[in-house]
């Protein structure tokens, strides 16, 4: 993932409302007007949040009749999680290095 993409993902996830939207639509699709009912803000404001999430590939949106239906994009969410996985690997590597040093005789 290139840094530009990453910025989009993390900027998108940096907002509580947007994280809540992602959680809801990963569980079950919801229309923008349905989502707007959950938050004390205008339809337009919610639509803006959805657009930011869409640019970051965390949700997808499709028009169905008069409604815009929002789905969670699991691949996008996993991409963000993958970075933390990679960092966990680094710590596993470090812990193995510490273990090697501790098992040597006469170091201390």
């Amino acid at each position, binding site marked *: 993932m290139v840094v530009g993409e990453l910025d989009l993902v993390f900027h998108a996830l940096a907002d509580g409302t947007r994280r809540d939207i992602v959680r809801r639509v990963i569980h079950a699709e919801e229309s923008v007007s349905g989502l707007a009912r959950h938050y004390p803000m205008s339809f337009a404001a919610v639509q803006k949040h959805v657009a930011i999430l869409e640019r970051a590939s965390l949700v997808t949106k499709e028009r169905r009749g008069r409604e815009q239906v929002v789905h969670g994009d699991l691949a996008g969410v996993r991409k963000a999680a993958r970075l933390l996985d990679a*960092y966990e690997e680094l710590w596993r590597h470090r812990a193995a290095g510490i273990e090697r040093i501790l098992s040597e005789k006469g170091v*201390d």
Partner: protein
Amino acid sequence: MAVIGSHKDLDALTLTFVAEFDAGVERVWQVWEDPRQLERWWGPPGWPATFDKHEFVVGGTCRYHMTGPDGTKSPGWWTITAIEPPHRLEFDDGFAGEDGEPSDALPPTHAVVTLEAVGDRTRMTTVTTFASLEAMEQTIAMGTEEGTVLAMNQIDEVLR
């Protein structure tokens, strides 16, 4: 060594990593306190670290660089923000410029290390909080690139 577990908080960009070592707390503390031991395990795979400065006191600074497989040097720094030997260490960890001095380009990562005795073993918990996503990516990219090179070398060996 046993990795007891890890927890990733995607919202807070925090990784908690817990490992247990078959050694006392004082002994595990040394791998942080002694720069010669620290540099043997701090760098990502294929990027050994060298600590040129290691002031292990509150407010102290450390300067280090990691050397990649092609000789590329990646300088970094720590500022120690809390220290309670042999149980607790907190520091900011950031990238540095060519001169080894902290660069403002990327905000530092904050690390909290806790060592506690569990019987005659030691449990080490590290909580890393990323202030910057690019910093996280840069940290990870180093190890990952080298991982790919290692994997390619292994394929070469098999084919030889």
